[in-house]
């Protein structure tokens, strides 16, 4: 069984390279922007922040820019990216389908609906609220919408008291369509100013990043990122089929509940602070599988790393591509994601037709 050993080494290298790229992308993201900061200074400031050389003399302007503006934004990108990647991998695992994504269980649609309703109400009813309070309201509303939609889909998918995957898919489609229709209705009734806000939110942005948002998001993302990889073996058994997984002694109902719950936590909270960022949850696990195989004990944690990497890069592109204007990050991920997705699709098609 030489193949296993060979594959373990390969996966070790993938983890290593992904980690190195992640560190590099973080440094580049911190360096680029309206004020360009030399990589050397970025590294020094980071080292100082980590407490390595506390007495180090660094440029105070640079330190301020990184501390107040760029670092929280980069950290937010890392968290959101990891959340989308890890949930994408886990959801594809329980759906036994590499084309599934967290949005399928209604998370994004539910969050969008609630966000749009709050945006529409805000100017009318809640005009007195400060901007910060408005932002928190939006985030809480979006998270509540995501959770509500996911719970609804989960409950509707139950047959004889057990969640059924085909049912979950159908309930997901129904809830997505329903939430989509209501979102459309509210959008239709919105005024100019609200429309701009809605559009901006729907396209996703990490622009709202502050240390507060980072701290608020941290537990919601950390828990799923640390626990979903533990389900890797169970998700592998799922690949055999649900009945087969049951026969191997797996409590499949519990696994489904855990995945739905943890994904909703991660993606719901991410969407709440950053809006809808498409394609990451779908594509990241796919590319990870192409690189190192389909074993979920590797795919799930590696997807967290790769998702964080992709989002950091995408956000940097969104900030500097047409500076000083900022492109919505959802546009970047979908623009770059579509060709990659099509490539994978056609490659798979050949495999199937062979």
């Amino acid at each position: 069984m030489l193949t296993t050993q060979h594959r373990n080494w390969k996966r070790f290298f993938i983890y290593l390279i992904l980690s190195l790229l992640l560190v590099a992308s973080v440094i580049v993201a911190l360096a680029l922007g309206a004020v360009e900061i030399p990589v050397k200074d970025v590294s020094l400031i980071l080292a100082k922040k980590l407490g390595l050389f506390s007495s180090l003399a660094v440029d105070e302007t640079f330190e301020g820019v990184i501390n107040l503006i760029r670092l929280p934004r980069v950290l937010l990108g890392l968290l959101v990216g990891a959340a989308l990647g890890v949930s994408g991998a886990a959801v594809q695992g329980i759906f036994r389908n590499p084309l599934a994504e967290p949005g399928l269980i209604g998370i994004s649609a539910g969050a969008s609906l609630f966000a749009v309703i709050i945006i529409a109400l805000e100017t009318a009813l809640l005009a007195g609220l400060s901007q910060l309070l408005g932002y928190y309201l939006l985030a809480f509303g979006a998270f509540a919408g995501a959770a509500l939609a996911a719970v609804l889909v989960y409950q509707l998918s139950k047959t004889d008291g057990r969640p059924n995957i085909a049912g979950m898919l159908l309930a997901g489609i129904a809830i997505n369509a329903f939430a989509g229709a209501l979102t459309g209705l509210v959008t239709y009734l919105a005024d100019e100013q609200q429309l701009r806000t809605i559009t901006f939110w729907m396209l996703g942005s990490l622009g709202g990043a502050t240390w507060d948002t980072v701290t608020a998001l941290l537990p919601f993302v950390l828990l799923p990122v640390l626990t979903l990889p533990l389900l890797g073996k169970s998700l592998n058994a799922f690949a055999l089929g649900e009945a087969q997984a049951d026969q191997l002694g797996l409590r499949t109902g519990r696994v489904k509940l855990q995945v739905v719950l943890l994904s909703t936590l991660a993606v719901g909270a991410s969407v709440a602070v950053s809006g809808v960022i498409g394609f990451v949850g779908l594509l990241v696990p796919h590319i990870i599988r192409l690189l190192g195989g389909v074993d979920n004990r590797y795919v799930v944690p590696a997807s967290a790393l790769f998702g964080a990497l992709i989002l950091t890069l995408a956000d940097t592109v969104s900030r500097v591509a047409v500076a000083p204007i900022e492109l919505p990050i959802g546009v970047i991920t979908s623009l770059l994601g579509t060709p990659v997705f099509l490539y994978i699709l056609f490659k798979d098609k050949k495999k199937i037709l062979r």
Partner: protein
Amino acid sequence: MLTVENVSYEVNQRKLVSDVTFSTASGELLAIIGANGAGKSTLLRMLSAERKPTEGHISLYGKKLKDYSPKELALKRAVLNQHNTVNMDFHCQEIVMMGRYPHFKNRPTEQDRRVIAETMKICGVLHLAGRSFLTLSGGEQQRVQFARVLAQIWDQSGALILMDEPVASMDIQYQQQTLAIAKALCKKGFMLVVILHEINLAALYADRILMLKNGQKWKDGAPLEVLNAEHIYSVFNVEAEVQMNRNTLQANVFSKELKLDAAHFNSFL
């Protein structure tokens, strides 16, 4: 020891299985035969604890199936399903190793590796170990699944192995080989309950045949008792001739040609 007492399964007021009673012990290969829709698969699903009987009880080694925890049951019985679709591109070796999942927590032990090497060898798929499961033919896939199922209970003596039409997608060589492996496992003390479509394979390999009709037990006994022209006609609606091979003392069933005249088709067209 597997005991099935007055088991029925009802869904939407339709009885798919009604009042079936039988038992089997380790060392026996029990074949279940019957027409399409006779309740064979439903019965097997109850034996595997995938479905709960609406009436009656099933117990394995004196303990009711419903009192087993999933993990406990996974160490006492394994199931080879009729259809096994895998959508992710796993290697065959990874698939077979999944049979050992109930035995290890994070990393497979030396014993797990040894077991999957043995079962892959026996099922004739060791050379496919590094191949992608999705690129295999239907028959090869089924043999890899068989190796996985065997890996699950390989070191659990007396375990129950359930198979739902295991050989339907295999060529004649592997049909024989798979059932020969099943037979050899019985000799080692395993219990096998196998649904078979091919009556002659049941005649060759089964120690006992359970014949189902409309969800009920129709006949239960040695192949030579169960397989006769009258029983086959009443269960399958097919005229057949049954001969006994004088050397092996095994039954051989020849079904007679079913002739439909043109008028028969004209009544549809």
